[in-house]
């Protein structure tokens, strides 16, 4: 399934994307050595039409910033974001508006992402109004009602306000809004992490149903590997702004090459007490280094169980193809490099 989709031109091509934020220093701080937060460093990946690309990593690793930079909610510091053949970073206002017709965003917090002073009908029809689609009001209302029906809400509630709905229902409103223009790509920024587990599954199922129907591609950002596994064709792991490993999800779960990926996978709970008890968890020592002052060499070397001297020197190891379609940024990349900790899925 995965292989057949990855042919032809990618829908989104991200190349050496870098985003740095200046750290607010005092008035008298020297301009020369201004400190910067290295949120995203040299990230590259492709998303093909209709596929789901999962981006995982712990809090603060730059996955959300990657999503926001692709959407150009913030401007990239360097690198290219080619969407549908055009560089998003170089677009003017008009091109950007046109691009946003085809790229939409689903937010993490369903309580903050809906304007409390607008009815859900107004919220869902806003993208249509902005882009001048369906000028006829009757037609538009009919369409919004059908969208609400598709995402599993009662169309009769079109005139209700967001505070009258539960978290899961609000997230459905956000999904209806994102699908209103039938975009080619939707960036889902942790769309289920604020929801109850039982509702998470419903929303994930809804997202995959909609994908089957409309052929939309997803950039699915999450910190939960089990959620990503459920929905993704391809998964990339980020650590401290860097891409560590990128592969189709089956290979990544069965044969993680990067010690960080392995550690992450070993932390995924398995709903079988015997298996859960028998397997070995990899406990990483220390904390994530500060993105203001990242370590030299591999950003993971301070915590890596198999790090050698060369890891702490020079540049970040390059993302190299360890197997066809499987990329890993580690000098010692090998299937399951930490012994006795392979994960059965």
């Amino acid at each position, binding site marked *: 399934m995965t292989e057949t989709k990855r042919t032809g031109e990618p829908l989104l091509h991200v190349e050496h994307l870098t985003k740095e934020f200046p750290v607010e220093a005092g008035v008298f701080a020297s301009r020369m050595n201004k400190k910067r937060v290295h949120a995203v460093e040299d990230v590259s990946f492709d998303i093909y039409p209709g596929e789901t690309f999962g981006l995982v990593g712990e809090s603060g690793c730059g996955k959300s910033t990657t999503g926001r930079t692709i959407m150009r909610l913030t401007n990239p510091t360097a690198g290219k974001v080619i969407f549908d053949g055009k560089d998003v970073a170089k677009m003017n206002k008009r091109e950007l508006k046109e691009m946003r017709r085809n790229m939409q965003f689903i937010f993490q917090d369903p309580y903050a*992402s809906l304007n409390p002073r607008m009815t859900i009908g107004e919220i869902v029809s806003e993208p249509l109004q902005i882009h001048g689609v369906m000028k006829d009001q009757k037609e538009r209302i009919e369409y919004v009602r059908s969208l609400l029906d598709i995402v599993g809400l009662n169309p009769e509630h079109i005139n209700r306000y967001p505070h009258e709905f539960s978290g899961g229902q609000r997230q459905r409103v956000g999904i209806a809004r994102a699908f209103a223009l039938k975009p080619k790509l939707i960036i889902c920024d942790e769309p289920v992490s604020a929801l109850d587990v039982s509702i998470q599954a419903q929303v994930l199922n809804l997202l995959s149903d909609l994908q089957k129907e409309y052929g939309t591609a997803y950039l699915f950002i999450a910190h939960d590997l089990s959620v990503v596994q459920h929905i993704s064709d391809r998964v990339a792991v980020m650590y401290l702004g860097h891409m560590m490993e990128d592969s189709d999800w089956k290979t990544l779960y069965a044969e993680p090459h990067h010690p960080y990926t392995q550690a992450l996978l070993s932390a995924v709970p398995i709903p079988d007490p015997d298996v859960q008890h028998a397997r070995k968890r990899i406990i990483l020592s220390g904390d994530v280094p500060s993105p203001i002052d990242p370590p030299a060499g591999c950003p993971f070397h301070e915590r890596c169980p198999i790090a050698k001297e060369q890891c702490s020197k020079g540049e970040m190891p390059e993302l190299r193809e360890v197997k066809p379609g499987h990329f890993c940024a580690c000098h010692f990349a090998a299937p399951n490099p930490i012994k006795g900790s392979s994960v059965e899925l």
Partner: protein
Amino acid sequence: MTEEMEKNEVTESPVTTDGDIDTSAPARTLWGDAWSRLRRNKLAIFGAVWIVLMILVALTADLWVPQTLGSPTEADSTTMTQDSRLPPSPEHPFGTDTLGRDVLCRVIYGARISLAVGVLATAISTIIGLVMGALAAYYGGIWDTIIMRLADIFLAFPYILFVIAMLAVIGPGIQNVFIAIGILGWPSIARVFRSAILSVKENDYVDAARAMGASDARIVARHIFPNSVASIVVYATMNIGGAILTESALSYLGMGVVPPDPSWGIMIQDGQTYLATQPWLMLMPGLAILTTVLAFTLLGDGLRDALDVKMKDA
């Protein structure tokens, strides 16, 4: 409402199209909710009723006051001596002043001036404050620095002295009073509005609108303004009371309304000499100021609670 919400939370099932919200109930707007909350706040309603009553009396004064109570400004020189400083009586409910004019009549016409100054001055400072606050918050950076430092400079001077200095330049008179109070009142409104916008701007729905391709104007008009205006409504309501107080103080000091026009401040100044013997001369306009300012404060306080989106009881 709360019960209904909880029910929704629990009953969310794969089939959410089931009537898990009672569709027969009319959809309630946030302003509707706010009104129902305000209605249960007795003090706020008392304030609102008092303000409406004052406005009605002040607006209709020309129709009935001169016939029953006499002119608020002109004194009749033939009857002045026997009418001077009469105590309250059925004929003159608030008594009469030194020139034999009815105090109630002057309090009513004074209400006209006070309310006009309060509302117009607040309107001026609100408009300036909204524009300045919006520019500072939405564009930030150098705009924010310039506007907010300017506001700091305005706020650094004692307010009443600043107004007096301005009136000394442009001259006294009712028109100049509300211009001076209005122009000098913008910094606090700008600050309140700026901080309201800054907090609203961080919400995901503003990013959502940008991600949809909405223009700056649309984002401000549809998303930022409706969500930050509540604090301005509250602040402006209370500010009206403050402006009335300032006007009275200015008139008392002789910098505001010019006699013989009736103003509560002037009446207090006229009456203070007779505080020991004819206290109503000072007491009545003083009570008028007290109740009016209190009414605006109570209403503003009630509005603050009612417009708080987080209070979702019903």
